[in-house]
């Protein structure tokens, strides 16, 4: 039985709600306000321009380019993090000697501080001293001096690979916990019915972990969209702006050019984008729960 106590209830959630109001929701409103101003230093003092800043921004191709990069980045990283995480979870759900050790080792990338992961990958990708080119040579594909981060077409692939590496253990961790709660007798029953591994996976495993799977997909997508330091350290958005995503672009606009108005416009647009995506995902989750 829950106790009915309005005053105490509000009192106890008060600090958290107040904190979020002051530190998240009010700043968001403030962002909205700044986004309606022209703050380009070369135009003199900031002035009110209403929505025309947004119109100009959409006409200017840069936002579309950044948006495209952000979507490619988020979709690829989130998809492969979850896919590899699921594969790893299925492997590690089987019993084998030294399983605990393998589990700990596989978790290391996720626990490694983000900047350090980025710095390490920078070294791995180095065209001369990096182990990646050396690995390719060792595998017998001849000497390579590929500049993984400096080649425009390749840089996006490189940062995506590093980000997948950094985050897949989180998906694995959550999915592994979900797999362990799947009742064992269901598998026994389906074995008697003659179902093979693949059928078992689609008819028993996947439905039972779908709740956690959806939460993981949502969290991972949002985190990836906001993931700043990997790209900031690896490429800084280059070469020729081919890896700029929303957070790095916002950083460049605000703290490189001090154009807070334009940066806020990008923030507001990315906020709305994230918000809509989460809304769709959450509705999807609730719909499935009811069925």
């Amino acid at each position, binding site marked *: 039985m829950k106790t009915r106590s309005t005053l105490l209830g509000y009192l106890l*959630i008060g600090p958290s709600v107040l904190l979020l109001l002051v530190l998240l929701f009010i700043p968001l409103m403030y962002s909205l306000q700044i986004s309606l101003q022209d703050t380009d230093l070369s135009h003199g003092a900031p002035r009110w321009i209403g929505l025309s800043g947004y119109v100009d921004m959409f006409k200017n191709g840069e936002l579309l380019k950044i948006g495209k990069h952000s979507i490619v980045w988020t979709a690829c990283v989130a998809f492969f993090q979850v896919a590899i995480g699921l594969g*790893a979870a299925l492997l590690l759900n089987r019993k084998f000697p030294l399983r605990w050790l393998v589990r700990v080792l596989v978790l290391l990338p996720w626990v490694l*501080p983000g900047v350090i992961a980025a710095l390490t990958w920078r070294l791995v990708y180095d065209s001369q001293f990096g182990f990646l080119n050396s690995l390719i040579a060792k595998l017998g594909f001849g000497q390579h001096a590929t500049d993984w981060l400096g080649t425009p077409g390749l840089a996006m692939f490189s940062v995506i690979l590093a980000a997948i590496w950094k985050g897949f253990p989180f998906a694995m961790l959550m999915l592994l*916990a979900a797999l362990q709660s799947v009742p064992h007798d269901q598998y026994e029953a389906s074995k008697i019915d003659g179902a093979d591994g693949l059928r078992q996976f689609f008819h028993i495993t996947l439905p039972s972990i779908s709740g956690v799977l959806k*939460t993981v997909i949502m969290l991972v997508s*949002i985190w990836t*969209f*906001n993931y700043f330091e990997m790209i900031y350290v690896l490429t800084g958005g280059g070469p020729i702006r081919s890896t700029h995503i929303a957070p790095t672009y916002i950083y460049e606009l605000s703290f490189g050019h001090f154009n807070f108005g334009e940066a806020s416009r990008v923030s507001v647009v990315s906020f709305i984008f994230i918000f809509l995506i989460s809304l769709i995902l959450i509705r999807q989750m609730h719909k499935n729960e009811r069925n």
Partner: protein
Amino acid sequence: MMIKRMGSRIMFAVGIAALLFFSLFPFMQMLSTSLKSSDQLFTIPPVWIPKDITLSNFAAALRHQQFADYFLNSLFVSVVTCVLVIIVSVLAAYSFTRLEFPGRKFFLNVILVSQMFCISAIVIPLYKIVSSLGLLNSYPGLILAYMAFTVPVAVWLLRSFMLNIPIDMEESAMMEGASKLQAFIKVIVPILRPGIGATAAYVFLITWQEFLFSLVFMTDPSKRTLPIGIMDFKGQYETNWGTMMAASILISIPVFILFLVIQRQLISGLTEGATKG
């Protein structure tokens, strides 16, 4: 049948080996670089296992003047954030799981939705607010910003831990004459201790490695935290990779140990929070 079994075993072993290789490959470079002397660092092609192992990079990292300062700054910010976040979140989680009041669902959703906030969307207004309050380059400013995005996660985790504690336990304590507050302190807090530990550790892990806010708010070099401080080794003209990787290892070890300790608790909190939405 036998052959099929052998085949699946081999496939399984290959899968595990591939997984391990993928996860550990960058660590090999990290470790190898940190153990090489400076003249071995830049041989082409790179040597994977250094011939003469040297610890001089570790010594250099520890001797680096600001390293200890950065470490203490990071420790201070993370510990204070943890304590404050836990106090605020335990209260909220108690309220959400044990009390009934109008708007409970609404406020719970507000807190849960805050997790989905686009961090880069609030960095600018927060920067402006913090700077107009004169809190740039001050720890309170950074700690406040960290609280904004760790409180939602902490409430989420603690709520899922508290849902697992049967209400009967408090009720029986209250029958024996304890007040609601006494029942909370005497019954719930002791059972919740592992959950609080896991949540605190998670908050610690997030703040210990936070990058963007620290980069923007702390422009004074002496106030920097470790994640920004480590960029020092990336000199203006040439990066001192050996020392940088040694420093990276030193920074990561406490994190790894902390994580190993809280792993089990953390996972159960995260997954239950995910299923009991």
